[in-house]
């Protein structure tokens, strides 16, 4: 009873809370890091070194007036931010933070569940997340958000193809679709997949940047373009939901990249006994550390690179990344067959 009901419930609560807190502090992290890149300090007033800035932001957004445009589709208008946020949160059901450990005298696995189609589940949930953007633009009943949302969703579904193809290469390497199985395959093979599949990793990262509408691919939602993109008509808590959904998606992409390409919860060189002292750091800490490195790279890229124009963006997705991903898949397949034949 406890094992089948209470423990998963606790895990869900912990993961959800950690995600939501993490998302709000991502906002602060981004502002700080971009500020430091630009030789300034970022938010410093609220709390020591600006630590309480997300609290101030949350309060501001919550007390803002909730405006719904006239003749907007009310149900769809309300539902769109929720449809945007929910997929970003439910992906955490399959992401493994660590192996089975002993906690308080019972064996607890540090992931909520291990579906044996886990990776496909992640991809399918990401493809449902497109609806939030399409519906937001449509429900606002005004020209600019509609155009921006169509552009943003076209961008998302284009890069989805490239990302899914790279995931197929990873599946070829690991032989299983389950996320825990992929981490175990990296453990058994003694190498992180990023070193075996560098092209796939790079394509996944670029595709992840485009999927989450992050710079340099954030044309559909940048303030200077199209008067603010598909969430122009949203204010207050609904806008906050979109905002948070974007950061939650970012954390999801970072977590998935960590699991698939960087060994998940494995420490560096898990088979080298010399580095056994690194085992003092618990597995989930390694996971969080690697995810944090990815998030930092996301913000770093935003602070550094200029924005892509929309046609350049689509050209990159269709004419460069997809052929590269297919080529990578073909080469991986050939190498796998040759290795088996020898």
């Amino acid at each position: 009873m406890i094992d089948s009901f209470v423990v998963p419930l606790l895990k869900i609560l912990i993961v959800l809370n950690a995600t939501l807190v993490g998302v709000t502090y991502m906002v602060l992290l981004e502002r700080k890091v971009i500020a430091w890149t630009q030789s300034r300090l970022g938010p410093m007033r609220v709390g020591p070194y600006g630590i309480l800035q997300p609290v101030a932001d949350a309060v501001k957004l919550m007390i803002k007036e909730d405006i719904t445009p006239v003749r907007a589709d009310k149900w769809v208008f309300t539902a769109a931010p929720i449809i945007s946020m929910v997929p970003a949160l439910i992906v955490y059901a399959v992401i493994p933070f660590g192996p089975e450990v002993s906690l308080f005298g019972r064996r607890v696995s540090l992931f909520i569940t291990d579906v044996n189609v886990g990776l496909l589940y992640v991809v399918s949930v990401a493809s449902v997340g497109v609806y939030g953007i399409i519906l937001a633009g449509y429900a606002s009943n005004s020209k600019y958000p509609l155009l921006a949302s169509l552009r943003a969703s076209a961008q998302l579904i284009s890069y989805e193809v490239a990302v899914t193809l790279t995931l197929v290469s990873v599946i070829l390497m690991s032989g299983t679709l389950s996320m825990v199985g992929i981490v175990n395959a990296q453990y058994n093979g003694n190498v992180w997949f990023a070193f075996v599949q560098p092209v796939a990793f790079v394509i996944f990262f670029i595709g992840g940047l485009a999927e989450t509408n992050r710079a340099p691919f954030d044309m559909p939602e940048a303030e200077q373009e199209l008067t603010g993109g598909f969430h122009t008509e949203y204010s207050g808590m609904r806008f906050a939901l979109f905002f948070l959904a974007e950061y939650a998606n970012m954390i999801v992409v970072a977590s998935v990249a960590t699991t698939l390409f960087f060994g998940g919860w494995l420490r560096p060189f898990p088979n080298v006994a010399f580095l056994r002292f690194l085992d003092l750091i618990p597995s989930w800490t390694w996971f969080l550390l690697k995810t944090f490195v990815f998030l930092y790279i996301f913000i770093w890229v935003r602070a550094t690179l200029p924005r892509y124009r929309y046609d350049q963006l689509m050209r990159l997705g269709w004419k460069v990344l997809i052929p590269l991903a297919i080529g990578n898949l073909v080469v991986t397949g050939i190498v796998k067959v040759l290795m088996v034949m020898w």
Partner: protein
Amino acid sequence: MGEAIAFYTLAAFILGFAVLVVSTKDTVHSVLFLVLDFLFVAALYVLLSAPFLAVIQILVYAGGIVVLYLFVVMLVNLKRPPEAHQDPRRRSKLGFGLSVAVLLELVAVGLIGVNETGRPVTAAASVMPVSGNTEQVGWLLYTSYLIPFEIASMLLLVAMIGAIVLAKREL
């Protein structure tokens, strides 16, 4: 018992949303009800121990095909008001007549045929050397059904080229 509750709940939602798809005046709402319908059908597949198919259903149907429908609806709907009053002509009577006939037939099948278990099928099974739903589906797809698989991929290629040619503005 749990399976029965799950089945009846899912069936109620699936049929309810299907009726809403067919009867809503606003096309965009109709598309949204279709998405929800597909998600519940995917849940039904999970209940039927077909997790791979459930995820494929969400990925392809709900995340691909219906997005396509939504795009076309939005491109087409821009100036058009919702559909006018329905045409109460012969066609709808024929449609409802047909469905009543099928319904009666189903009720008859349900009442009469429910006790027969049918011939036990020796599932023409090549014993598959893999276990796990995805692996078994993959095994079948690549051994017994390889030719349909290749034809299906060619069909998708042809459909892709055809859709692009049809929808381009200038040829």
